[in-house]
């Protein structure tokens, strides 16, 4: 492992953590997906979890959101040790998750998806309060900047960005203490990523503990208070934003030394021009500036 600065930042400015993971690990048979992960989630803070593919980010959030139980270590919520046998148990403790696949049933309407598992009912026969649910759903979506004229429309017919917004709005509305976002910006365009990041800040200011999982250090650095980098199932960096610049974060994220080596190695290969771009006759569309896309084989 690289020479990572494993430093603990003691919460000077914030109160005690809501959620603490201490030496948590998860093994699937003899595969150790996660080993010795310690993490503090504080109220009003955004904790960014970064890592490359296969670093164990998804396993980590699956433990916190109740999809999998951890096999080692302890997880404490408000100082009480806990484990979540199901996502329902995690939700009951005030932990809401925006999953990478969004967890929306495609054939169900917008409002039914929004309230799935948290339906509002009224009266003796526990009838669904559809009018109220639709109104809340409409309001919450409007806050995110989207209006869906027909909330009875099945979610499957909406755009990716709209679906993402529904999943995030749902988690923010129901997340009482902690909200986990798993790669919320991975599938989004620039503008909608901005909306999501703004929402992360908003949830933080509302006093929630936010766990933001991403592999984009630029997005993480914009909103994060605290950064944890995972690599091959272990924590390789745990630092407060005071201790890091974006460049350092990017470097650490990419594996520091490894990136330097890679860039050195690639610099030796002069891509050069293989063919000269065809001359474009005047009046036709200008050829865009051609990026160096030649194969980087040594």
């Amino acid at each position, binding site marked *: 492992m690289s020479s990572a600065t494993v430093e603990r930042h003691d919460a000077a400015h914030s109160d005690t953590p809501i959620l603490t993971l201490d030496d948590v690990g998860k093994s699937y048979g003899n595969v150790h997906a996660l080993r010795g992960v310690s993490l503090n989630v504080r109220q009003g803070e955004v904790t960014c979890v970064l890592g490359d593919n296969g670093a164990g980010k998804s396993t980590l959030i699956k433990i916190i*959101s109740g*999809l999998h139980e951890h096999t080692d270590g302890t997880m404490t919520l408000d100082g009480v040790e806990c484990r979540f046998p*199901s*996502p*329902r148990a995690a*939700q*009951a403790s005030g932990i809401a*998750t925006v*999953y990478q*696949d*969004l*967890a*929306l*049933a*495609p*054939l*169900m309407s917008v409002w*039914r998806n929004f*309230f*799935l*598992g*948290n*339906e509002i*009912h009224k009266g003796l*026969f*526990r*009838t*669904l309060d*559809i009018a109220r649910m639709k109104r809340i759903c409409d309001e919450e*979506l*409007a*806050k*995110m*900047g*989207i*209006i*869906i*004229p*027909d909330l*009875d429309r099945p979610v499957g*017919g909406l755009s990716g960005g709209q679906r993402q917004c529904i999943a995030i709005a*749902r988690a923010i509305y129901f997340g009482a203490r902690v909200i986990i976002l798993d790669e919320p910006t991975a599938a989004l365009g620039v503008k909608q990523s901005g*909306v999501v990041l*703004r*929402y992360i*800040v*908003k949830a*933080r*200011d509302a006093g929630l503990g936010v766990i933001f999982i991403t592999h984009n250090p630029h997005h993480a650095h*914009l*909103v994060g*208070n605290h950064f944890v980098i995972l690599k091959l199932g272990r924590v390789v960096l745990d630092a407060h*934003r005071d201790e890091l610049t974006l460049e350092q974060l990017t470097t650490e994220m990419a594996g520091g030394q490894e990136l330097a080596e890679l860039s050195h190695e690639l610099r030796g290969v002069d891509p050069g021009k293989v063919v000269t771009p065809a001359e474009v006759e005047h009046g036709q569309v200008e050829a865009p500036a051609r990026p160096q896309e030649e194969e980087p084989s040594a």
Partner: protein
Amino acid sequence: MTATATEPGRAGATRDDRVASRSLAARLLSRPEVGSLIGAIVIFLLFMAVAVPFRNIANVGTILYGASTIGIMAVPVGLLMIGGEFDLSAGVAATTSGLSASLIAWNLGLNVWVGVILALVVSVAVGAFNGWLLFKTGLPSFLVTLGTFFILQGVNLGVTRLLTGNVATADISDMDGFVSAQKVFGSEITLGPVTLKVTVLYWVVLTLIAAYVLLRTRVGNWIFAVGGDSAAARAVGVPVKATKIGLFMAVGFCAWLSGMHLLFQFNTVQSGEGVGKEFIFIIAAVIGGCLLTGGYGSVIGASIGALIFGMTQLGINYAGWNPDWFKTFLGVMLLLATVVNVYVKLKADRR
């Protein structure tokens, strides 16, 4: 970092002008049961035109009776299909229920009602077993219930022959409690020229309750979700196992209701009965707009599917056609109904 998040309130929200709101007609046409309703009207008009006895109001009771025996099972089977699962053992399970009640009461010399109650326990347990096995093995429900279908078929025949030396149960009409039980499960009401079996009442009540549960309660929301995407449903806190096992148990309950009718209508139950019925229930649900893949459908539709079945069954007789062709007719109708469903839905979604 200073929070410079602008409040993205109503003002910032933009209506996407590519998405127009749909007209009322389009929304009505995209309901899952529309295809079956159109089908029912067409079948009704067809037999009104070609079959003279079909126009006789006194035959309404007979047609509804045929529809109700299918409908009582098509409703829970439809719910189960919306929940993403199949139950191929549903037809045989009804026979199992009738046999249990009869054999328990006769062989132990008990009041008929004791047999009826124990049969309910057996039926619901069979449903729960199907659901439990589904989660225990992780196999598709098609396979699991195909297994129970054969198991029950063998048990029905084997146990009946073991206890009675015969392939049918003994006549229990002279036993204690038979008269009152028959009133509940096999009586009929006369309304003017129409004689209605009590099963018609059960069918209508079951349809209304199931439609209410599906569309207006949280359990209904969960049924759609576990059928549409059970991983997503679990992730947001829906009790997936409980919902699905509950649906299998509902099928068990209705199998009991239909088994009791079988018993008290004929006083005796043939152990080989019920084979092949399971597909009729599934056909009714599919005609009613339930997707084979789950997550979409309607119990009202499934009931209309059962009504189509009842009308066709008797209509063919009334029209004087050769009843040998009934199954062929059914198959063609299944295909037509599915095509119409898909077509109507596509049209409505595009509006």
